[in-house]
C-alpha cells in the first residue's frame, strides 16, 4: 500500500513541481510584494493607491467583461441553436464552417483588425455610409468600450459556441422530435428543451471566457489605452513606465479576486456534476 502511494506521489511529482514553481511561487511573491512597504513592514498603502488611482478602471473592467460574457452567451446560443435545429442544410453547413474562424486568430490580431475596422473613418462606417444607412456626419468612432466589447465577443463567442454545439449534438434527438411532434416551434424547443440540458456546458464556457477576457492586455491596449481602461493596461503601465511593482501586484491581486468569482462558479458546477456522475 505504502509502496503504491509512493509510486503515485512520484508520478504526480513533476506536475506538482511545475505548478509550485511556476504558479504558486510567483503568486506568493506577488502577494509579498503587494503588502510590503519600502522598509519591509506590512502595509496596505499599495492597495490604497491602487484604489485611489484605478477604482474606475476596476469597475470599467468588470462592466466590460460581464457585458461581453452576456453577449457571448447570447451569440453562442443563437449559433449553436441554429446548428442543431436549423432547417436549411446548406446554411447550417456554411455557418458551421464560418463560425470557427475567429478561434484561430490571436487577440492582438483581433485588436489590430478592430482598430482599422471600427475607427471613425474606418471600414464599418464606410460601408454604413456607402449603403446610406447613416449619414457621414453622424459617423462616430467605436474605439472605446464598445470596440473592446466587439473584439471580445467576436473572439470568444466561437469558443463557447464550439463547446455548446458539441453538447447540443450529443443530446437525445427524441426529446427534440417529441417536442416538435407536439407542435413546439424551434425557439420554444431551444429554450425549454435544449438549453436546460446543456446549461452546465454553457456555464463552463462562459466562465472560461470571463477569466480569459480579464487577462487580455493587447485588445484594450490597441483599442482604448486611455482612461477608463482595463486593469491589464494599468498593470503594464505601472511596471513599464514607473517600475512600480508593488502597485502592479496589488492590481493583479484585485483582478485575481475578480477571476476568483468565476472560479467559484466553475468549481461549484464541477463538484455538482462529479456528484451527479458518481
Amino acid at each position, binding site marked *: 500500500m505504502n509502496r503504491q502511494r509512493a509510486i503515485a506521489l512520484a508520478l504526480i511529482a513533476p506536475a506538482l513541481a511545475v505548478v509550485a514553481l511556476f504558479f504558486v511561487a510567483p503568486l506568493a511573491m506577488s502577494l509579498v510584494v503587494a503588502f510590503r512597504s519600502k522598509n519591509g513592514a506590512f502595509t496596505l498603502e499599495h492597495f490604497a493607491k491602487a484604489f*485611489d*488611482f*484605478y*477604482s*474606475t478602471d476596476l469597475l470599467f473592467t468588470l462592466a466590460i467583461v460581464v457585458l461581453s460574457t452576456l453577449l457571448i452567451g447570447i451569440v453562442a446560443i443563437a449559433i449553436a441553436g441554429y446548428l442543431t435545429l436549423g432547417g436549411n442544410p446548406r446554411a447550417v453547413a456554411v455557418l458551421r464552417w464560418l463560425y470557427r474562424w475567429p478561434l484561430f486568430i490571436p487577440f492582438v490580431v483581433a485588436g489590430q483588425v478592430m*482598430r482599422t475596422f471600427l*475607427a*471613425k*473613418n*474606418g471600414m464599418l462606417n464606410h460601408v454604413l455610409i456607402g449603403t446610406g444607412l447613416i449619414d457621414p456626419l453622424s459617423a462616430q*468612432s467605436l*474605439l472605446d468600450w464598445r470596440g473592446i466589447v466587439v473584439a471580445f465577443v467576436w473572439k470568444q463567442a466561437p469558443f463557447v459556441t464550439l463547446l455548446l454545439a458539441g453538447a447540443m449534438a450529443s443530446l437525445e434527438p427524441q426529446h427534440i422530435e417529441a417536442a416538435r411532434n407536439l407542435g413546439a416551434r424551434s425557439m420554444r424547443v431551444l429554450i425549454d428543451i435544449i438549453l436546460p440540458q446543456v446549461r452546465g456546458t454553457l456555464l463552463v464556457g462562459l466562465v472560461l471566457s470571463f477569466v480569459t477576457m480579464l487577462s487580455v492586455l493587447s485588445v484594450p491596449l*490597441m*483599442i*482604448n*489605452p*486611455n*482612461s*477608463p*481602461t482595463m486593469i491589464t*493596461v*494599468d498593470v503594464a*503601465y505601472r*511596471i*513599464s*513606465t*514607473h*517600475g512600480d511593482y508593488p502597485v502592479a501586484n496589488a492590481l493583479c491581486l484585485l483582478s485575481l479576486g475578480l477571476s476568483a468569482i468565476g472560479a467559484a462558479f466553475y468549481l461549484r458546477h464541477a463538484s455538482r456534476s462529479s456528484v451527479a456522475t458518481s
Partner: protein
Amino acid sequence: MKFRHLFPVALFAFAGTLFAQTTLNVITAGDQNMVDYVNNYLAPKFEAMNPGVKVRAVGTGPGDAGSQKIYEKLSAQQKAGNNEWDVDVAVIHQLASATMVNEKLLMMYRGDVSAGKLVSRDTAKNALGANVDGYVLPMFHSQIAFAYNPDTVKAPPKSFVELNEWVKKNPKQFGYNGVKGGMSGVGFVTGWVSAYSGLADKLEKGPYDASSQAAIDKALSGLKEFNQYVVMTPGNAGTLDMLNRGEIAMGPVWVDMFYTWQADGRLNPKVKLSLPSPGLPGQPMYYVIPAKAAHAALAKKFIDLAESPDVQAEGIVKQFNWYPGIDPQFVQSKMDAASWNKLFTDISPADLSKYGRPFPLSSYFKDITEGYERVVTK
C-alpha cells in the same frame, strides 16, 4: 522546390555567422525606427569598416518603458555579479539614464571618443536634473509639436491658452494620447502643466519642492475640463493615423515621426507643424556603454562613428528626420541646403530654441503623470 532554393541562402547565412568572430550587441529603446536605423544604416557601415564584426540590434519598445527594460536587464547582471555584460551599446531615454548613472551601471566614456568634443547642448551633461556628464552622448534630439491640417485649421493656436479656446469652438477636433499611450501625449501633458501652473522654470531646473503639487493639480484640473472637448487617441502613431484619416484636425506628435510618415506617404502631405508658446518638450536619446560591456573598445568605436558629422548629416538628419545630437554647425556644413532646410520648414530654428523645452525633472515628471491619473482620469 522552394526549399531547395532556400538551402544555399541558409548555408551562406550560416557561413556568415562562422566568419564573424565578434558580435557587437546594440540594444535600443524607442519605436521601430530606432532598430531600423541601427540595422539598416549604421550596422552595414560599421561592419564594412571592421571586418569580422557583426552588429546585432534589438529593440525594447517605445517610451520610457523601453528604457526601463534595458535598466532592468543591466541591473540584473550587476546584481548577479557578472563580469561581462551582454550589452555593448545601449540607446536610452533621459529618465533611465539618470537612474543608471546613479546605480553605476554605465561607463564614463565621452573623453575616450573624438566625437565627444562635438556636443554642445546642455542635455549632454544634464538629464532631467541629474548629472550625467561624461556618461552619455546624445544620438539625436527630437521634439514634440502640434501637427494640424491646414484645410480645416486656418490659423493654428499659438499658445496653450489659444488652444483651450480653440477646442471649445471646435469640439472633438483635437486629439492626444493621454499618459499611457506614448511620449507625445505625456509631453503634451507636461507642456500643459508648464503653461498653466506658472512653474515652467522650476519644473525644468528645480530644485524639487513637493509642495508644488497643489499648483500642478490645479493645472491638471483645467486639463480635465479641456479633455471633455478632445478625442483620446491610441498612441503616438494613433494620433498620426487619426490626423491622416481626417478624424481629428490637430494633435501633438513627434516631429521626426511626422516627417518620416510624410516621406513614406503614410500621412497627408498637406499636414503641417507648429510649436505653441510657452513650448512643448523634446528630448534626446543617449548612446551609453554599460559599465562592464564585453566589447567596450568596439562600442566606443561604434559610437564615434555614429556621432561623426557625416553620419549625423546623412543618417540622423537626412534619412531619419531627427535634429542632430552633436552641435548643428558641424552637421550643416556636411549637407546640401535643401535637406537641411527641410527639417525647419514649419518650425524655424528660432522657434525651436525658444519653445523647444526639456521635460520636467524626474520627480516633477512623476508628480505630473501620477497627478494626471489622480486628477484628470479618475
